[in-house]
């Protein structure tokens, strides 16, 4: 198939959520929600996804901006990553999110990329992105799950026919911060925990999130639960800009008198969903924050990993990043 030329579609630019939902309902399966357009336009230009109706949300001002609420902050889904990085409240209370957002892609992409788009982005599995008719694309096989496949970026946990991973840098931070995702559709509004927002192939092999056709992610709420905690975010990628993580880690810790009172720690790019490491969380609670517990946590983090071709390195890398998250935070 010849790529790099978009096929035609009907472009809709609603100015409010209600209109957007109406258009999406009418378009049904042929509808496509577009935020900043970075992921969408890549799909369209490659002609792998060819929706008939594209609903560009950029004209809906209600979806933009960061508001301080009674119990935290609410970030409109169309808020750019650059705004998230520079927002004073986010920086002072939820620096984990600012750090993660600052690691996404490149300054140019962060200027147009939205927080909603980042968490709703599709996986980067190169077989799937190349347009192969795999499970995730509605087919009946996985081209990446073969004895000789090139799996460097693929999963080490819980492969289920599909071996793709969640590539978002924001997602682990949101799960660590116990964020709530606000979803609207023609039936009303639902609020979903970030941890449950992301779904693996066992739930639905064609989606990365709970968002279904006709849904719009309108906002992300960050409760004050972890405000001002000790945070650690690190992303390891091949390049220092414009790259997806090989593995990333987001951790929020409450430390008092050198002892870890509570912690949430999440790693990305090792599974189809951001992987919350509950074993590590349990293990460190009540322990002195230091090199020993950090090392033990690292070892616990990789347990159960099943590497594929060329991604064995993710085991020491997840161990090292979890260790650093506890040791160096």
């Amino acid at each position, binding site marked *: 198939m010849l790529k790099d*030329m978009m096929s035609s579609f009907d472009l809709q630019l609603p100015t409010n959520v209600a209109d957007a939902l109406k258009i999406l309902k009418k378009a049904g399966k042929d509808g496509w929600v577009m935020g900043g357009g970075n992921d969408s336009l890549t799909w369209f230009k490659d002609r792998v996804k060819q929706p008939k109706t594209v609903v560009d949300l950029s004209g809906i001002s209600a979806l933009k901006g960061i508001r301080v609420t009674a119990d935290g902050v609410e970030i409109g889904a169309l808020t750019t990553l650059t705004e998230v990085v520079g927002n004073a409240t986010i920086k002072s209370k939820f620096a984990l999110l600012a750090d993660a957002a600052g690691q996404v892609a490149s300054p140019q992409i962060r200027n147009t990329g939205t927080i909603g788009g980042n968490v709703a982005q599709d996986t980067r599995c190169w077989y799937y992105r190349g347009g192969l008719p795999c499970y995730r694309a509605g087919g009946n096989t996985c081209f990446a799950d073969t004895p000789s496949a090139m799996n460097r970026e693929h999963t080490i946990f819980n492969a289920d026919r599909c071996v793709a991973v969640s590539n978002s840098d924001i997602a682990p931070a949101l799960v660590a911060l116990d964020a709530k995702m606000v979803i609207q559709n023609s039936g009303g509004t639902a609020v979903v925990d970030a941890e449950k927002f992301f779904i693996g192939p066992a739930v639905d092999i064609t989606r990365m999130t709970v968002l279904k056709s006709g849904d719009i992610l309108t906002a992300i709420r960050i409760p004050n639960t972890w405000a001002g905690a000790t945070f650690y975010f690190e992303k390891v990628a091949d390049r220092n*800009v414009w790259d997806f993580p090989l593995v990333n880690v987001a951790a929020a810790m409450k430390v008092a008198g050198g002892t870890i009172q509570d912690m949430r720690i999440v790693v990305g790019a090792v599974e189809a969903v951001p992987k919350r490491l509950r074993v590590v969380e349990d293990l460190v609670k009540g322990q002195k924050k230091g090199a020993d517990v950090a090392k033990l946590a690292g070892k616990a983090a990789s347990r159960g990993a099943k590497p594929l071709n060329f991604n064995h390195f993710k085991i020491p890398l997840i161990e090292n990043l979890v260790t650093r998250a506890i040791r160096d935070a």
Partner: protein
Amino acid sequence: MAYNLIGKDFTPPDVLAKVTGKAKYAEDIRADGMVFCRILGSPMPHAKVRGIDDSEAKKVKGFIAILTADEVPSFPPPNNPILNNEPRFVGEPILAVAAETETAAVEAVNRIKLDLEPLPFVTDPLESLFPRGPDARTNGNVANVRLKLQQIKWTAADFAKAGDNTLPTGKPAEQWQFGDLDGNFKKSHLVLEETFVTAGNAHNSMEPRTAMAYWKNGKCFLHGSAQSQQFLIFGLSRFIGIKPLQLVYSGAFCGGGFGSKGGPYAEMSIPAHMSKKLGGRAVMMRISREEEHYIGKGRPGFQGKVKIGFRRDGRILACDMYIVHENGPNTGFWDFRNAGTSFSIVFQPEAMRWQGISVLTNTSVRGPQRGPGENQTAAAMEPIIAQAARKLGLDQVAIRRINAPDNSARIGGKQGPVTSAFLKDALDQGAKLFDWDNKKKESGKRNGSKVIGIGVGSAYHAGGANGFDGLVRITPDGKLHVHNGAGNLGTYSYAATSRAAAEALGAKWDNVIIERGDTRKGLPFVLGQFGSNSTYTQTRTNWVAALDAKAKLQEIAAMDLGGAAGDYDVTDSKVFNKADPSKSMSWANAAQRAIALGGKFSGKEMPKDLNPITKWATASIAGTGLIGVAKDKLPKKGVVPALVTAFVKVEVDTETGKVEVLDHVEVADCGTAVHPQSLATQIKGGAVMGYGLALGERYIYDPKLGISGSIGFHNAKVPTILDIPSEMTVAHVGKPDTSNPVGAKGVGEPVQGASAAAILVAISDALGGHMFNRVPVVPDMIINAAAGRPQSHKPLAVNTQ
């Protein structure tokens, strides 16, 4: 030597257009009634086209025509075909479709149904060399330039003898040897034997190879993207099926080539063929980023083995090198040969054997990429040299210095001479600039998970050619026109080399006009802009043409003002009597006289030994001024070596595998710096490309599907601005090469190899001498090595992640 222009900075005339966006690249060209064509590439790595169903394509509104392989000239295998009914790599153009709009062309292409018969394919050369292994072509698995297409299979015993982790060394396709190899290995105090792999990688030029063509009055007008100008004409006209003089080629700007657009290439003729089919209507063929990945040629990879014998003081007594070269499915390029040549010059072994075989694979088509073969060799060999230094207890610079070439150096299997070599000077200068003696004390210094490593590495590429033509013209307005047939790769050497003509004539630079970028401008035949040759080659051609013009100025002055030609000299805009400067004639008047005199003075007559293209160019401007035209017959005894050395300090994070280059010094032995600013840019740009070679860029193929996983700037892992240090120190030795009239020689290619080599040596140093024997070294390899875990790849695996 003191020069007026050579060695001074200036602003090349095309800079303004580039920084203001006014430069017209092939894709920017428009013509009345222009239509668009797009190509349909093969979805399979090797297949036979049994049928093409275009019935649905024809229904697309705006569809005009389809062009198939049967309608274009074919060339003897293994040449790159224009269109192909037996595609041998994913993305190989099968056919092209023209439509009124590009959208319609793409839609029509996507509606074509191909009936393909899959054929056996191979992505790993060793698989093809194994008895009964798959061949990339139905009639052979080994070929290269000047190496005929043939089938070579090694024996099962060859493979069994080597085992899984050492390169088997069956029958080579080519070899050479000099010196007493066995005797010198016996004399060696230390012998190292290593198997290594270097990955192939795409060029990723910013501008894909878009082309536009139309026909008028029996001539084909073609706008393309190429490094070269007049060098293209013979080959390109053959692709189109016309005589060279029927081709009008324009290519004033090129958005990067790095070797991939050095010579004529088959795809450039597709819009010309389509246009002919449409009665001459202009046809634009845009090439996408993905298509450029497939057809844009790429660097071949190596599976290699080397055995090196060292004297106690580090002197290399013997080298035995074997290169299995991954060539793509067609003619490819001779990187494997350059591997042997470059080792022989950089390390001056007393005895050496080189063996090589160029194996065909069903992967993207290959061609030369910056330092083809030399840079892979530098990157693979320098860590081994570093290992020898460690084992012998020698300083890393000292072991390189004792082996480095000087003016008495010999090169290649025939051990021919070189025109000049100052690599020892470059090492000394670099060590001083880098503060080697102090920095080496930091080797292995730890800061948490981070470790410091120090590295040095050198590289070579031939840096100049001879025997081409120069053409200058002085017009009746007194201007000096330098007709430059080189091309404009983006290095600005077309402008820098034009200054040699101005220098020879004493012209002021603002009185010089460079004619370039279009065959209609009367451009001489010179070598293409590749192979680090332009600076050397074209300073010679422009120099000899200018001297011819100077002689004619002197003759005219003697004719009109009395005396002998030798009584006259030439300076800025006039020719004057040396004894009596009041006797003088302006260039403007001399040009008028040349036109009136005709004959050789106005270009109506010209030397017989000129290339036909130069003759035609001269004839096209004859009678418009005083013509200086000559073939470069200046003496040149030996290969012109461009040599570069780099010094690097890195910090390696052993927990994340990340490498940060903290210091980078690079010193070139490139003779006289013709244009210092451009030289510095060349060194830095090439050095950055070395970061890609050392740390990330590589072809990735799924061996079961034959598809590529490294398409596009993101997946190709081209280095970004944040992956390089904010400052680099660059310098040049500055000792002139006396075989060049201004002392210059090339520099463009080894700057990358030296950079990559020094980085890899430094990483190895940080990890206590760990040998990866693989290029590039990526974070996962460092993480595994630091954690004491095995690597995911087998030592000989190619196209891996």
